């Protein structure tokens, strides 16, 4: 043991002295350095041992990697709040990531913009655990299936307060336009989801490129705005659970969390969309270009496709898992919830990358939607304030001038007196 550490010290010293040492020696030295894997994921989207006794999936991977390949690895885990933030960070450079977990339409875009590496599926044997419905062409975001491995999926539903909302209405998006619930409706604070709902309400495709259809959706949202309590992201949990709002669109997995954590006396139920389109989404693991350790990245993807990690994460998030026959597993908490794995997904449509043109149209509509007209009084008072301030400035100057004049006069008087005194 002692000799080994002595040798280590020697090697370290040798490597410190730089390139003069022989190649084989430095190789051994770097092998002893732990590898690093930079994982960039959505917030609250993986069990990382936040609660007591829960398994830390990343730590489990580190352990598994060491057992399997005999090398130390450290997972450097960071999170983002939405696809756009993740995309910009990747494009702007400066930060390097080995694993990202974007949504379908963002993967679509990243493939088109050549930002992703093709995966070597020989390193991902657990890919066989992924259900076949994710390998055929029912999902379009990764048509050749070479760039991504599914992580979680889900679809959009309505969550409502059973004491205040008529359950019979909660199967069409139109309920979000119902005057009865004015001020109690929540909408997403991002353009993609909000516009998708307005498009679906009108029977349009969620990925339409027709300018007229976008315009119609926009007009609908403008009409809806006075009814909307708030455009929210994570506040939806608080507001629904406390009965502050009565109805909102949300992803099914989030509904399960809300229902479970609702305050006493607040009864939340879920309304499934029927006869209209709803959105299905899928987040998948990808390796971005510029990845420093592709082998370890693929090992990580492989580990996440194992039932051990997959079930843990599915229990933690409450979203639908893409793993084959997961409902047969005894350690899976949501095995008795068939709604998580709907048989019929025919009325569900995934988001596609809209392309820069349509994207700009949507973003501009969104910004206009969020604008508020001020009242006439506001303008009148603002003008009055400006006039008042200008008046005060002028008055202030006048006062100053007068003071200076007085001071000058006083000074002259004083010097005159002094002169007189000297003369006498």
């Amino acid at each position, binding site marked *: 043991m002692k000799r080994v550490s002595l040798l280590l010290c020697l090697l370290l010293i040798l490597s410190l002295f730089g390139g003069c040492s022989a190649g084989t020696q430095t190789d051994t030295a770097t092998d002893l350095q732990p590898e690093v894997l930079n994982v960039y994921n959505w917030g609250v989207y993986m069990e990382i041992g936040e609660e007591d006794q829960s398994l830390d999936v990343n730590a489990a991977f580190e352990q598994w990697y060491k057992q399997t390949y005999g090398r130390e690895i450290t997972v450097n885990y960071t999170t983002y709040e939405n696809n*756009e933030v993740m995309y910009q960070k990747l494009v702007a450079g400066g930060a390097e990531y080995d694993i990202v977990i974007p949504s379908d339409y963002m993967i679509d875009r990243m493939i088109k913009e050549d930002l992703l590496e093709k995966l070597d599926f020989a390193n991902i044997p657990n890919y066989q655990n992924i259900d076949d419905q994710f390998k055929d062409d029912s999902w379009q975001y990764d048509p050749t299936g070479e760039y991504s491995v599914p992580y979680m999926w889900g679809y959009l539903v309505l969550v409502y307060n059973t004491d205040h909302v008529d359950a019979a209405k909660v199967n069409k998006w139109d309920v979000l336009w119902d005057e009865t619930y004015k001020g109690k409706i929540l909408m997403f604070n991002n353009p993609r989801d909000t516009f998708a709902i307005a498009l679906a309400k009108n029977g349009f495709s969620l990925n339409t490129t027709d300018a007229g259809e976008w315009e119609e959706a926009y007009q609908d949202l403008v009409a809806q705005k006075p009814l909307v309590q708030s455009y929210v992201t994570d506040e939806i949990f608080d507001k629904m659970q406390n009965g502050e709002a009565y109805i909102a669109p949300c992803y099914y997995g989030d509904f399960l969390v809300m229902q479970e954590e609702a305050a006493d006396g607040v009864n939340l139920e879920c309304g499934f969309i029927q006869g209209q389109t709803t959105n299905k989404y899928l987040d998948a693991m990808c390796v971005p270009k510029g990845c420093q350790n592709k082998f370890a990245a693929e090992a990580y993807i492989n580990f996440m496709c194992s039932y051990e990690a997959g079930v843990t994460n599915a229990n933690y998030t409450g979203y639908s898992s893409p793993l084959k026959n997961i409902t047969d597993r005894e350690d899976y908490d949501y095995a008795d919830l068939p709604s998580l794995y709907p048989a019929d997904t025919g009325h569900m449509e995934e988001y596609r990358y809209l392309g820069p043109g349509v994207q700009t149209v949507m973003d501009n509509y969104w910004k206009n939607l969020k604008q508020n007209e001020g009242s006439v009084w506001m303008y009148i008072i603002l003008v009055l304030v400006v006039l008042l301030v200008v008046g005060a400035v002028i008055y202030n100057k006048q006062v100053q001038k007068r003071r200076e004049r007085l001071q000058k006069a006083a000074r002259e008087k004083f010097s005159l007196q002094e002169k007189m005194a000297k003369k006498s």
Partner: protein
Amino acid sequence: MTKRRGLGQRLLAAPYIVWAAIFIIVPLCMVLYYAFTDASGAFTLQNFSDISNFSHTFVLSIWLGALSTIICLVIAYPLAYIISRLSPRAQRFMMMLVMLPMWINLLLRTYALMKILEDTGLINSILEWMGLPPMHMINTQGAVVAGMVYNFIPYMILPIYNVMSRIDTPVLEASRDLGGNFWQTFRRVIFPLSLPGIVSGITMVFVPSVSTFYISTKLGGNMALVGDIIEFTFTGEANYNVGATMSLILMVMILVCMLVMNRFSDGDEEAMIV
């Protein structure tokens, strides 16, 4: 006016100058660059016409910013005066109370305020308990102004308190001895002496109020202020050019307001924020 500074003094200023160059001057230049170019980097003025339809949002932001600044001033001025006349011990304690909320992150404070103002929130629960009719407060302009006042009022109290505490009590006594009543003492002595503090207080509240973005989203419901739109152009749209143009216009507007304000302070260094 210009004093020649020794080498030592200039060396001491070096770290700040480097810091300012990297984190203030360079970003400002980048804002300027993005504002006058398009996505491909060519010179354009298109961005300015693109944002013309956001004039309502600009006016609304300035309106709410001005409103909360005035409310802050009305609350802070007498408070600062009262604190400055207390015993030194009591002054320290009161100032700690003023600073106390600032130990908590602004985002948390705003989120907490949202929970307090909600229809099912703390205030309405108390009203209900007392048998009073509920009050709708959240998601209104009033809630946004309340959020701004709550978050930024220490920035108003501090500078005013600073100048107030430097007014010697004998000065006020002298004014009274010379026959000045309270109103005259205030108008002739206290107010002119505290003007620099007022001006820097207004600056320090008005600037963050106008450009705020988190407070309006959380407390305003479906309302967006100019800060929200700028945030979306950067993080949602990745349209740096339009975002930079909006920031630039906002900066110029604030600058103009501040230049006007500084007219009041007789060039006192205390108030020379701009």
